[in-house]
C-alpha cells in the first residue's frame, strides 16, 4: 500500500533519508525503528507530501500523496500530537478536518468517543495533557476511516492504560486489513505490537523483515545445551559448522543454528542431553546489534 522507491532527502550535504526502498503491506503492523535522527520522521513527512524528496518516490496505492483526493480518507497520520492551535477545541479541530475532506460530521463524535476524548472535546487544545493530545491526534488519524495509518511515536505521554489501548488499536486496525506504520523508541512495545520491522540508521535501510526473523537473526538468540559430555558435543557442533561457546563444565551455547539442528547433531553423535532450549534475544538486544554502527547521536560506550 505504501511504496518507497530510492527515496532520498538531503539537507545541505547531509542525507536525512538515503536511497530508501521498501513496501509496506496491508494487514500488518510495521514497526519503524531507528535511533534519533535516523530519518524516521522525515520519511513519514515525505510519504505525506509535506516535504519534497531530493530524489525517488513515495507512493500510496500507486499514487503520490499530493494527488490523492480527500487524502484523509485514504491515509490517516499522526506526526506531532502537539501540532494543534492551543486556543481551538479538539472538537472544532476535528470538525474543520472533516469538512476539508468531505467527511460526515457525525464521524467527529464517533472518533472522539473511540479514543475516549468525548468528555474533553470542548476543551482548548492548549489545556490538554500530552496523553490527551495523543488521543486527539489518533482521533484525527481515524477520522476518514483510512486504509493506511501512520503514527510517529504514538504512545509518547500515554499512561499504561493508554499504551495498552494503543497496542490493541494498532492490532485491530491491522486485523481489519489496514496498513499500519508505527515508529517508536520503545522496543518492548514494538515487540508486542509489530508483525514486521523496518529499521533505518543514518537514513539508510538496515533491515526490512518480519519481527520473528529479526529476533531469530540476532547473535544473542542462541541454543543452550546442558550435557555431561560438553567437550565432545562442542567438537561435533563445530564440525557441523555451528559456533559454540562453552559456558561451564556441562553447558554450551550454540549460535547460528536452530534448536532442531543442535538436537540432531547430538542425537547422531549419541550424546546424552540434560537440557536443550532456545534463548531468544529481546527485540531491544537485536536492535542494538543492528544499529550499533549507525547510531547518529549515540553517547558512545564508556571506556571504548
Amino acid at each position, binding site marked *: 500500500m505504501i511504496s518507497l522507491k530510492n527515496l532520498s532527502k538531503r539537507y545541505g550535504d547531509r542525507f536525512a533519508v538515503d536511497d530508501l526502498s521498501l513496501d509496506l503491506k496491508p494487514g500488518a503492523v510495521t514497526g519503524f525503528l531507528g535511533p534519533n535522527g535516523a530519518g524516521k520522521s522525515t520519511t513519514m513527512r515525505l510519504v505525506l507530501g509535506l516535504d519534497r524528496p531530493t530524489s525517488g518516490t513515495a507512493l500510496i496505492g500507486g499514487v503520490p500523496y499530493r494527488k490523492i483526493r480527500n487524502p484523509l480518507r485514504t491515509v490517516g497520520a499522526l506526526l506531532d500530537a*502537539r501540532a494543534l492551535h492551543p486556543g481551538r477545541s479538539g472538537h472544532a479541530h476535528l470538525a474543520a478536518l472533516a469538512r476539508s475532506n468531505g467527511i460526515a460530521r457525525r464521524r467527529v463524535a464517533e472518533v472522539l468517543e473511540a479514543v475516549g476524548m468525548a468528555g474533553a472535546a470542548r476543551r482548548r487544545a492548549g489545556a490538554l495533557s500530552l496523553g490527551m493530545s495523543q488521543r486527539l491526534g489518533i482521533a484525527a488519524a481515524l477520522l476518514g476511516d483510512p486504509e493506511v495509518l501512520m503514527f510517529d511515536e504514538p504512545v509518547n505521554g500515554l499512561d499504561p492504560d493508554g499504551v495498552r489501548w494503543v497496542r490493541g488499536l494498532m492490532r485491530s486496525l491491522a486485523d481489519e486489513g489496514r496498513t499500519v506504520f508505527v515508529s517508536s523508541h520503545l522496543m518492548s512495545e514494538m515487540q508486542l505490537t509489530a508483525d514486521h520491522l523496518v529499521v533505518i540508521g543514518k537514513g539508510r535501510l538496515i533491515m526490512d523483515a518480519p519481527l520473528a526473523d529479526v529476533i531469530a537473526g540476532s547473535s544473542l538468540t542462541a541454543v543452550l545445551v546442558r550435557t555431561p559430555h560438553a567437550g565432545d558435543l562442542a567438537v561435533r557442533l563445530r564440525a557441523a559448522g555451528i559456533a559454540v561457546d562453552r559456558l561451564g563444565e556441562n553447558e554450551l551455547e550454540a549460535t547460528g543454528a536452530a534448536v532442531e539442528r543442535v538436537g540432531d547433531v547430538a542425537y547422531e553423535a549419541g550424546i546424552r542431553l540434560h537440557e536443550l532450549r532456545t534463548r531468544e534475544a529481546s527485540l531491544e538486544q537485536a536492535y542494538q546489534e543492528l544499529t550499533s554502527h549507525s547510531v547518529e547521536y549515540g553517547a558512545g560506550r564508556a571506556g571504548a
Partner: protein
Amino acid sequence: MSTLWQAVGAEWGKLWSVRSTWWCLAGALVLMVLSAITLGGATATEALRDGGAGVRLTAGEPVVSATSFVQFAMVAAAMLVITSEYASGSIRVTLQATPARGVVLAAKALVVGPVMFAAGVVSGAVAAASVYVVLSADVFGGLVVMPIGEVVPDLLGAGVFLALVSVMTVGVGAAMRSAAGTLTAVFMLLMGLPLLLLMTGAPVALDASMRLPTFAGLAFMGSTDNLTGGPIPYSAGEGLAWLLAWTAAALATGFAVLRRRDA
C-alpha cells in the same frame, strides 16, 4: 472545485473557533468608532476655526481616514490565520488534509477577504452613525451630514480596502511564516515605506510612495489628500488597480514559498 469549497469550509470553521479572531474584530470596531470620531472632530474643529462657511463634512469621510488605523486590527486577524498554523505546527495537519498548496492559500484568502469586507462595512457603519451623532452637537457647528448616497459608497470602499489589505497579509504570512516577520513586513509596506519615501521629499520617491497600498487605497476610497497637502495623482480606479496588484503580488509570493519550501 469542490476541494476548494471543502477547504473554505474548514478555514471558516477554524477562523471562528479561536478567540483571537473575535478579539481582533472587536478591536477593529472600537478602533474604527474612536478614530472616526476623533478624525471627524478634528476636521470639524479645524473648519470652524477657519470660519466654517460652506464646509460640509459627510459622516463617511472620517471612516475612510480611520481605515489607516483600523487596518492593523484586520492585519492581525488575517495574519493569525496563517502564522498561528506555523507557530503551532498545525500547518502540517492542514496540508495533510489539503495537499494542494494553492487550494489552502486560496481558501484562506476566500475566507479572510469577505469576512474583513463585512467587518469593515459593519464597523464603518457603526462608526459613521457615531460620528453623525457625536458631531451633531453644537460645539462642532452642525457641519456633519449623512447623505446616504455618499456614505454607502464610502463604507463599501472602506470594506474593500480592508479586505484587500487583509488578503495581502495572508500572502505575506504564507511567505514569512512567523507572526513577527509578517507584522514587520506588512507594517513596513503599509506605513514605514510610504512615510520614509515621503520624508525624502524627492519627486521620484513621492511618486513611488503614491503607488504603495496605503495611498492607492486612499485614492480608491475617494480621498484626495496625500498627507503632505498634495493630491494623489491618479483616479480611484487606478488606486484599486494598484491595490489589487499589491494583493496579487503578495499572494503569488506566498504561494511560491508555500509550494517550494517543505512544510
